[in-house]
């Protein structure tokens, strides 16, 4: 019985760190567009890399910029400590508005280091399937109508950053807009070691 418990614990925690496997992005590949308009396959894009993945829409004025900024602070911390090979990904769930050019501008205005940061958009149905794999929800909520009768809508959405290991397993989920930078840096390091 003791041996069984030991085997279970080893399988649960595995690989010398204590972050259990929470899930993954599924077995399929999704054709998505980067902020530079390049078609890529996801999650193939992050295979073999430790990644932090955030879920955003660019019309979001509060939660999503906080999520992005928290990821940026982690990216800066890792650079300061000369830790390489960690990828940052922001997946937009507002496919209609967030085309590659919009995502590019979003990255530039926030001075994101795009050498290790990819912002992704895609077909509405693909994005819907992709975020469903990781239990991220995004539904249209309130809206504003401009003087030109344009309807601008706001999403009610899961506020999350996922930590993904080299095998594509999600090892931890954080409240994206309120994540603790030290905790994320420590967790990333634990997957490297």
């Amino acid at each position, binding site marked *: 019985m003791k041996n069984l418990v030991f085997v279970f614990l080893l399988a649960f925690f595995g690989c010398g760190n204590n972050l259990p496997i929470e899930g993954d992005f599924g077995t399929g590949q999704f054709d998505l567009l980067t902020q530079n308009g390049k078609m890529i396959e996801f999650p193939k894009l992050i295979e073999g890399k430790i990644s932090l993945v955030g879920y955003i829409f660019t019309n979001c004025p509060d*939660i999503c*910029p906080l999520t992005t900024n928290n990821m940026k602070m982690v990216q800066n911390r890792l650079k300061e400590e000369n830790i390489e090979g960690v990828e940052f990904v922001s997946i937009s769930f507002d496919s209609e508005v967030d085309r590659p050019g919009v995502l590019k501008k979003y990255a530039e205005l926030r001075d994101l280091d795009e050498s290790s940061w990819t912002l992704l958009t895609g077909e509405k149905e693909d994005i819907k399937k992709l975020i469903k794999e990781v239990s991220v929800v995004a539904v249209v909520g309130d809206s504003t109508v401009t003087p030109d009768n344009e309807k601008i809508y706001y999403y009610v959405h899961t506020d999350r950053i996922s930590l993904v290991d080299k095998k594509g397993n999600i090892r931890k989920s954080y409240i994206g807009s309120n994540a603790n930078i030290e905790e994320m840096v420590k967790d990333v390091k634990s997957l490297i070691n």
Partner: protein
Amino acid sequence: MKPLLAVIILLITFTACKKEVEEVKQNEEKKVDHSGMMVHKPWIRPASTGTNTAFFGTIMNHTDVNDTLLSASFEGAEVVEIHETYMKEEDMMGMRRIEFIAIEENSAFKLKPRSFHIMLIKLKEDLAIGDKKSVTLNFKHSGEIKVEAEVKDMPGGDEMDHSHH
């Protein structure tokens, strides 16, 4: 003994006068810098043309009257509304328009991330880090208060709310 007593009396008088002068000065400074309605550390998040962003800052009501923020205006946006961010479930966040914000007399109200903010909708121009933009808040009693806000990624110190709603 008499000269010593005189010196002590002079010193006490001098110290008292100095203290009084300082109090008057402080009160004058209060009148100049902290009277009426004002916004402390106003700032706006960067955003590109056509998208939305938010204005934050601490509204300080130094008057003896309860007041109400009724609306706001910003030339660089097509629509400006008062909004609040709310938590729907454990980790689901949303945002909705509210009609006004009541600010009690001699109190402060924080427009802050993950909470209340002024929503600048459909920007007519890019707002880049370091830019300074003028936003006007319209109060029921205090009237229009114009503030200059800096565009930046994040606030400093206690302006960030780390609590969950």
